[in-house]
């Protein structure tokens, strides 16, 4: 009993990971757009679960709050409003199979390279070990750790990022407005 | 500074005060008849007092000798807007006036307007105070003096009286 539970607890991360992949597969494979969104949502929830098993509670909850609670809702909103059933008859590949395969191969190459570097490259050891002030985290909870990172160590990139987002937001509003007129 | 008004809760508080007062009154009063504005009657246990003129089901009246008062003048049959009354004139031993051998009343079509009672010159029919008229069978709505006694009522209550 005890051993079973321990092994379950130790393997929660791969379980969540596989489930997330499953959700993503459902999202891609589904012909019904709302089911795709549901698959996406499931994947997002599983990713949040992955974070939680890594004891990154803050990140896990933020994932839940931002992606599951905010972004996917908007996806769903759009998908529900747009009538997609009328495109059902069309060939989903639309004679772009070769281009698509090429793109996928390229993408895989890039991701594979990155993975290889991360796992077996020179910096792998360092990247995979957590920083000591987090692991012996009696001092800092991980909400504090994240905020320290955002608002102290990387304040400038963070602010620049938010300005970029603001610009995008304003741009979107402007575009939406002009279309109406 | 119009938006500052949004912080003034007096409009909502006024309504809340009123509804809260009503809640309190009902909650803390033992005798519900003493609660102001409380008019609930719990129907099967407590029945409301009907007005004397209430228009319920059509009933035939018998006189002191137990004799049907109706003399088949057909006034009620003629005036009924929905034609729910059918009278068949007949004779009865030892009675000078005509006697209704049948007085059929289709209650399912009756609209309780009391025109029949108003037209009757002999005070032989009345709308009584019966209001629980629902039944499970359609046949139960076909009332008549033949075969069923449910059309009769022995005493006639004078429903209309002079003004105060």
């Amino acid at each position, binding site marked *: 009993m005890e051993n079973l539970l321990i092994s379950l607890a130790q393997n929660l991360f791969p379980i969540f990971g596989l489930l997330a992949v499953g959700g993503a597969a459902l999202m891609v494979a589904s012909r019904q757009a709302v089911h795709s969104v549901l698959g996406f949502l499931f994947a997002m929830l599983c990713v949040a679960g992955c974070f939680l098993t890594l004891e990154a509670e803050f990140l896990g909850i933020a994932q839940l709050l931002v992606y599951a609670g905010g972004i996917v809702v908007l996806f769903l909103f759009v998908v529900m409003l747009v009538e997609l059933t009328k495109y059902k008859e069309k060939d989903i590949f639309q004679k772009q199979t070769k281009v698509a395969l090429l793109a996928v191969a390229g993408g895989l190459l890039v991701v594979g390279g990155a993975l290889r570097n991360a796992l077996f490259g020179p910096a792998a050891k360092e990247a995979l070990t957590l920083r000591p002030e987090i692991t012996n985290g009696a001092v800092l909870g991980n909400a504090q750790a994240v905020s320290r990172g955002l608002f102290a160590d990387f304040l400038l990139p963070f602010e620049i990022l938010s300005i970029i987002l603001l610009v995008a937001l304003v741009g979107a509003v402007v575009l939406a407005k002009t279309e109406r007129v | 500074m119009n938006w500052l008004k949004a912080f003034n809760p007096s409009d909502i508080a006024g309504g809340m005060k009123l509804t809260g007062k009503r809640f309190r009154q009902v909650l803390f009063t033992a005798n519900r008849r003493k609660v102001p504005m409380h*008019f609930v009657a719990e129907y099967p246990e407590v029945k409301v007092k009907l*007005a*004397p003129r209430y228009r319920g089901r059509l009933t035939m009246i018998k006189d002191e000798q137990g004799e049907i008062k109706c003399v088949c003048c057909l006034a009620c049959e003629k005036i009924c807007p929905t034609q729910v009354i059918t009278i068949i004139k007949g004779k009865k031993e030892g009675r000078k006036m005509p006697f209704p051998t049948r007085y059929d009343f289709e209650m399912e079509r009756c609209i309780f307007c009391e025109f029949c009672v108003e037209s009757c010159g002999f005070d032989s029919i009345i709308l009584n105070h019966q209001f629980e008229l629902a039944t499970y069978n359609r046949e139960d709505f076909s009332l008549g003096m033949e075969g069923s006694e449910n059309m009769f009522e022995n005493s006639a209550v004078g429903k209309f009286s*002079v*003004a105060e």
Partner: protein
Amino acid sequence: MFKNEEMEINLGPQHPSTHGVLRVKLRLDGETVTHCEPIIGYLHRGVEKICEDKTFFQGQVWTDRMDYVAAISNNLGWAESIEKLFGIEVPRRARYIRTMLTELNRISSHLLWLGTHALDIGAMTVFLYAFREREQILDLFEAFCGARLTTTAFRIGGLREDLPPGFLKQAQAFQDRFLACVDEYETLLTENRIWKKRTVGVAPISAEDCIAYGVTGPVLRAAGVAFDIRKAFPYAAYDEMEFDVPTATAADTYARYQVRVEEMRQSHRIVQQCIDKLPEGPVMAKLPKVLKSEVGEVYHAIEAPKGELGYYLVGEKGSGNPYRFHVRAPSFVNLQALPKMTEGKLLADVIAAIGTLDVVLGEVDR
């Protein structure tokens, strides 16, 4: 990028807020109404045709069933138009009692309007408070004529019977507490910010449009036109009554709400005058045994709670029934203004507009 796809929805005939069997065909762009079409006729019974087959005496029971929340007003119009056709003079006491009951009926009709309108907008307590007072009025009707809803209250030439004993006391008891009740409704609604947001500026219709559509009653008066048949062409005992015709200028739902609430107060005033000044005397005029008409036509209009209720009667020589009978039903005419009031507004405003027009489908469809 995306074509605006309009959605067509049916509001009714089975819908919680269409006050009966009104069906409104709406085309929505998002929640904005682009097209609104009231579809009526689900309650059509052919009242006008039926009445042509019935005697003048019998016809009254069908008027009960047109505007069933204001049956006594309908009864009054029917009785008075026949009296006009035959030239019958109604005794003064009967006219006073008729006025009193009609005004009580106006209050009860407005209470029903207020309750359902508030319920449509979400204030559920006002509904029950208003119905509480309406029950008291219906008790008065029951005491007077034996029925609460389909009253068949009046007779051609006067009343069937005088007031029952104790009626005036009962009526006075109602009168004494009614104004406080109106204040109670106003506490819940008039200043409430949500109520104001839902009604101010909602479903407006200008005085010109009202007149063009033939809209009458509180809707017209809320647009600033002080037209009230009780003042303009007095009938019953209104020429002897003192009352004001409340008007407003905003012509929106809130203005109509204020006008109707004020009308309840004015009706209260009229009822009080009727109780105080009730003359003695007979309640029934001398009538011929059977009413046989000459050739002639009459149009008689009264101010029903919803607006101008007109009865048009044509008599046929030697016949006991009307040759032609037509009702100018205020709900029917007012309902025409619904598309004008709602197009370009939001779905929730349609609900408010149906409520503020105060239509009764029994009267619309007849």
